[in-house]
């Protein structure tokens, strides 16, 4: 276990060190400079910052989508955004600091790339055309990349409200909220407006072409305001979709699906994976369906459900369980939080009889409670043990205490062991 840990940390540091110079040049935001830097090459092991609590496990290279390229998570996001800007002339990307490339480098290069060429073909966009009755042509007269990828003032409620307005006209709006921790000023616009636009207007109007992207989850040192996982707040809001990828390949396909989905979507990106997660990702666009959980490993004895970074934690828990307890685990990546794939989880629990759900967000009111409640309703007689939730504590996300706070593999393993012995 220690060997795996230190190898991972060495890899982490090596990768990070290589990119450091380039990263420093690009990175403006002071706080983000602290992120994804390697642990200080400290002399004293006791004072060295913690290594990551997980090991990213890449999926095998996908064959069905054409040529692939090695990408980390932020590069796969850039690729998805690049594909979107290329095929959808109405698409725009905006938020704080996106123009220079973003504090996590997700939008690097996009602003300069999308300058329309002369003799641009005429686009006929039905919904867009409906409101404004014109063909979108002669774009070079008024547009450069500057109007497709641009900074907004520092105002999350404005970013989301503005994005809704773009989407109401039928154009594609891709908004970035710099950290999920800062999404709350936009909560009213998301919950009271975006989610209800179609319903309240009797489908006369909608903002389905809005996607909000935001870095999410723990990162080792983010503390209260750079570590949050707020998916549970939005799970309680019919009308929006909430999607969380576990890897670069998943991220690109899911993000493209969110952008193309005809409903407003929130796409949370596990920030700790931005550089740590690397795998082969198709260069061309492809879609991964929303509201479909993925069984990433089949098993007989217990079902483990998680999303985002935590999927990699429970993967490791599954191998620990196999090795130490001879227990076979079925691992499910939920992927879409709402509307969530009840059937896949039910089917699995009917088979195994045991369910463990894990997330970083606090226990009370966390999304595990929704899953637990539904599964006990649907699969009560199949359960061999109470459903287990391994989550963050009911506290704000602490700084120095992060290693104690997070639902790491030891806590998950222990909960699994208790369930098996129930």
């Amino acid at each position, binding site marked *: 276990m220690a060997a795996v840990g230190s190898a991972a940390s060495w890899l982490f540091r090596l990768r990070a060190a290589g990119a450091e110079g380039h990263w420093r040049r690009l990175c403006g935001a002071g706080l983000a400079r602290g992120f994804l830097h390697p642990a200080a090459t400290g002399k004293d092991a006791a004072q060295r910052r913690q290594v990551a609590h997980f090991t990213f496990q890449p999926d095998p290279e996908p064959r069905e989508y054409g040529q692939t390229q090695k990408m980390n998570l932020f590069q796969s996001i850039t690729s998805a955004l690049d594909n979107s800007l290329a095929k959808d002339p109405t698409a725009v990307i905006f938020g704080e600091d996106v123009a220079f490339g973003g504090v996590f480098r997700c939008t690097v290069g996009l602003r300069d790339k999308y300058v329309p060429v002369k003799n641009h073909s005429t686009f006929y966009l039905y919904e867009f055309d409906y409101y404004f009755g014109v063909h979108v*042509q002669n*774009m070079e007269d008024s547009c450069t990349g500057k109007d497709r990828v641009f900074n907004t003032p520092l105002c999350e*409620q404005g970013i989301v409200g503005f994005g809704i307005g773009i989407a109401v006209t039928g154009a594609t709006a891709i908004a970035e909220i710099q950290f999920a921790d800062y999404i709350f000023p936009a909560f*009213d616009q998301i919950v009271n407006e975006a989610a209800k636009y179609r319903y309240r207007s*009797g489908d*006369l109007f909608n903002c389905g072409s809005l996607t909000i992207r935001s870095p999410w989850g723990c990162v080792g040192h983010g503390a209260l305001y750079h570590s949050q996982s707020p998916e549970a707040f939005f799970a309680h809001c019919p009308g929006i*979709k909430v999607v969380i990828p576990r890897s670069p390949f998943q991220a690109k396909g899911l993000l493209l699906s969110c952008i193309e989905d005809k409903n407003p979507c929130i796409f949370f990106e596990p920030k700790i994976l931005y550089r740590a997660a690397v795998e082969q990702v198709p260069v061309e666009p492809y879609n991964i369906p929303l509201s479909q959980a993925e069984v990433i490993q089949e098993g007989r004895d217990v079902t483990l459900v998680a999303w985002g970074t935590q999927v990699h934690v429970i993967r490791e828990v599954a191998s620990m369980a196999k090795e130490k307890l001879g227990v076979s685990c079925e691992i499910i990546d939920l992927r879409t939080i709402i509307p969530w794939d*009840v059937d896949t989880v039910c089917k699995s629990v009917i088979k195994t009889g045991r369910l463990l759900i894990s997330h970083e967000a606090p226990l009370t009111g966390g999304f595990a409670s929704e899953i637990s409640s539904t599964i006990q309703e649907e699969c009560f007689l199949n359960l061999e043990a109470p459903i287990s939730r391994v989550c963050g504590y009911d506290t704000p996300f602490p700084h120095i205490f992060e290693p104690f706070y997070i639902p790491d593999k030891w806590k998950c393993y222990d909960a699994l062991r208790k369930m098996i012995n129930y």
Partner: protein
Amino acid sequence: MAVAIAAARVWRQSRILGQAALLLLLRRPGARGLAISHPHRQQEQQFSSLDDKPQFPGASAEFIDKLEFIQPNVISGIPIYRVMDRQGQIINPSEDPHLPKEKVLKFYKSMTLLNTMDRILYESQRQGRISFYMTNYGEEGTHVGSAAALDNTDLVFGQYREAGVLMYRDYPLELFMAQCYGNVSDLGKGRQMPVHYGCKERHFVTISSPLATQIPQAVGAAYAAKRANANRVVICYFGEGAASEGDAHAGFNFAATLECPIIFFCRNNGYAISTPTSEQYRGDGIAARGPGYGILSIRVDGNDVFAVYNATKEARRRAVAENQPFLIEAMTYRIGHHSTSDDSSAYRSVDEVNYWDKQDHPISRLRHYLLSQGWWDEEQEKAWRKQSRKKVMEAFEQAERKPKPNPNLLFSDVYQEMPSQLRKQQESLARHLQTYGEHYPLEHFDK
């Protein structure tokens, strides 16, 4: 332009903003019709340590060595533009829009038809026929004057007291009533409280109850219009109370920085439910905030339909040509209660309300104008009152008789497609009604 210069003169005299403000107010368009903004100019300056000029990126200003706080000038605020006096006489002939008779009659008929519909629907709430209503008494001029100055396809984002805009765009009485009654003909499918109108055909975005949320949305729509070279403006209506919301600040700032063709139209009617303007703000109303954002701004007499028309017309022309926002603050008075849930005698005197109703009403003012032009008379007035009342009553009776929409419409349009879990809930309600249907008002609902 003349207006902007006059406004600039006032500013200069009160020494609030100085030369830089004048530049802001008279911002000249750049090569692309885009206003050249200060930060760009700032960044083009050569840096020289020998110069004693400020180099700060954050402001384009000179140094001063005298400690002096800028005095917000609230004693004599931004002047109120008007075309007619209270008797409907044109004051300055060069400001007369010289609108043709048919158009001015359409103004008058829209305002009076709205007024008639308001009376009848307010009564219908009192009689328990509809659940809720909000009247537009006293503000009809702001709706009609502005709507008339726009293209029919300009997108409208409203707050909830702009029914006259829809009226001017010929939204049928039947549909106003259908929404208030929530009957089968409601395009909104019965989902919202009365007066939450919406019309895709007439480019009027469906109203929502949360205040000011429409402001940054309108800015986004305007940005999209600019990108599409649509030659359209977006207009966004809100009250002086809603202007206190953070969303208003967000909208103004985004519109200015992102150079959007939008008209912000503030109906300053003196009250936000019971809260008078003295408790809503301490500055010089809403118009004075515009220059703080770099937005061209004007204050108009909202009860003068020609003043509203002129200001909106010019704002529209320039917003589209120059891709920049405009702020119009229309001063008016809310003659009616906030809504049927309000009794305003609890916080203001009947005398105050009567003054506005009798002495400074947009409808009477326009009527005086029409009479002086010889385009209207007492007989036509009587005939029109009778006719408009009859039209409203007919629509009203029809709306009463229609059933409500099928309860299945409770479940659709949450998403574009119905999620499987929601379908299960829909089925569970259907099963429930099979057993317990007698306890539900099913007879009023479409089968």
